[in-house]
């Protein structure tokens, strides 16, 4: 008995640092937000209990819902541009191909750099006035494009996000593809199945479970990203690229962006809760639907 508890105590000792950090930096902030979403707290002075005021305010805040809409546009755009290219690259690299490792190294390279640093580089590339891309377009006789204006800014942000994401998803797809036994393809080939047929009838169904995890990761990371947009456009021009987590950042830390927004921690907590809920519901819904579809097809 004593020996058993001594063993337990030892185990607790091992997990203590990790548990302390998780509780203080992971769980406590959630409880903190759960409390302050019911308070009127601007970051200074005293926090006053405000009941449901902040939650009611969520529904009246058109700017927030615009930001949420922008986030959906951004996330779907990023996924539509990233995932098919990444999957195609993975399928091609999974076959016998000369220079396979070198190509894989090149495709993955963008993911090793800091999003913020690359956003600075992309700012110089996509800048409307003497940006590097417009210089190249001029050189080959094409007209310059206003990459960061109201109409194009979101598309530019999506392109940049895809640039940083393709390599990552290619690797994840490759890992999934390597789990498919080679002899399935060989026997399909003997039966005369063409490349496209093999892709739709073997690759996609056999990728199933891995595909679900990858999709879920893609949805979550696309809905939650804002770093590159923050450095590139700061959400502008006039809110055209304002995504939901960038809006949250501005509510909590308005000093750094030079925004006119005022710090509002009570309301920011309510927004953070809503955003966590939105991402949770969407990923949950995705998992539920994909499971349903799997049941129908198998």
């Amino acid at each position, binding site marked *: 008995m004593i020996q058993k508890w001594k063993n337990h105590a030892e185990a607790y000792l091992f997990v203590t640092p990790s548990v302390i950090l998780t509780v203080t930096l992971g769980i406590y902030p959630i409880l903190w937000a759960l409390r302050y979403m019911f308070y009127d707290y601007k970051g200074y002075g005293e926090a006053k209990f405000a009941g449901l005021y902040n939650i009611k305010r969520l529904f009246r805040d058109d700017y927030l819902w615009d930001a949420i809409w922008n986030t959906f546009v951004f996330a779907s755009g990023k996924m539509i541009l990233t995932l098919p290219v990444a999957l195609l690259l993975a399928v091609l690299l999974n076959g016998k191909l000369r220079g396979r490792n070198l190509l894989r190294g090149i495709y993955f390279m963008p993911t090793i750099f800091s999003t913020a640093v690359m956003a*600075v580089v992309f700012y110089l590339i996509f800048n409307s006035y003497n940006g590097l891309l417009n210089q190249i377009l001029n050189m080959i006789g094409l007209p310059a494009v206003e990459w960061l204006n109201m109409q194009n800014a979101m598309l530019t942000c999506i392109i940049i996000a895809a640039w940083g994401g393709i390599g990552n998803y290619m690797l994840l797809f490759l890992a999934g593809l390597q789990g498919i036994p080679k002899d399935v393809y060989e026997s399909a080939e003997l039966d005369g199945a063409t490349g496209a047929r093999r892709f739709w009838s073997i690759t996609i169904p056999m990728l199933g479970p891995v595909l679900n995890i990858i999709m879920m990761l893609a949805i979550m990371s696309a809905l939650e990203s804002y770093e590159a947009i923050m450095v590139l456009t700061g959400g502008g021009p006039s809110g055209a690229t304002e995504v939901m987590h960038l809006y949250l950042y501005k509510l*909590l830390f308005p000093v750094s962006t030079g925004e006119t927004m005022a710090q509002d921690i009570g309301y920011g907590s309510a927004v953070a809760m809503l955003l966590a809920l939105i991402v949770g519901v969407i990923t949950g819904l995705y998992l539920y639907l994909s499971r349903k579809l799997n049941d129908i097809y198998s």
Partner: protein
Amino acid sequence: MTRISGRILTWTFLLITAALLLLPIALAMLGSFKTNQELNAGSALLPKVWQLENYLYTWKEAKFSVYVWNSVIYSVGATITTVTVCSLAAYAVARRSFPGRKLLLGVYSAMMFIHMGVLTLKPAYQIMVTLGLHKSVLGLIIMMTGAGGTTFFILYAFIRSISKELDEAAMIDGASSFYIFSRIILPLCAPALGVVGLFAFRGAWNNYILPLVFTMSQPELQPITVGLANIRYGFGGAVQSHLMLTGACISMLPMLLMYILANKSFVQMNVGAIKG
């Protein structure tokens, strides 16, 4: 015939994608050797005269020596703490049964799905203020330490794949838990430790939002990501394109070097993220 045209199509796609993905990196590297005028006026792809002074100026005058030094300290520090904290926990959870073990696993996996975004940093900052660590390097390193998440689960899965007989034999011989952990488990974990260490280093080196929020009033504590983005928001008025690109390249260079040297580990860490 279709075979050949198919192959041409494949290679066109592969090479164009590769070129598009490499282009921004190449533009940044070439641009970092140009003068500001050359960059703004538009010129040939290659710099007229390779301006090595850009690097000297960025390093000394634009204070990048300070930024880089800070980045190195944070990244090395956060890598050590992350790997230590996670491997200790992963060992106990993988090898011991204790009350609360299931709960711990449940909470850690749930935490991977609940994201409050930047809100987390507000109460965390207040904790650091209470501890008097909000203006210190140590505070930042603690904040950057990943205590659970992918790192924990990769190590957890790896330790579980190590044969249990090894530590049981050592235990019969009277070895203490810490001895087993440090002399048997850790050495066998070396490949996994390398992978998660690289993961942690990349995360800390590239981190932007956390150090931005924590060093807002302490420019002398800013890492390279924050220092660089600040130039973007104006550094002495005129846009200094060449300095931005040189700074970006200084930030990219160490990662590129590590990538070339440890390509396999980089690949494994991302794959581990879905298998772990």
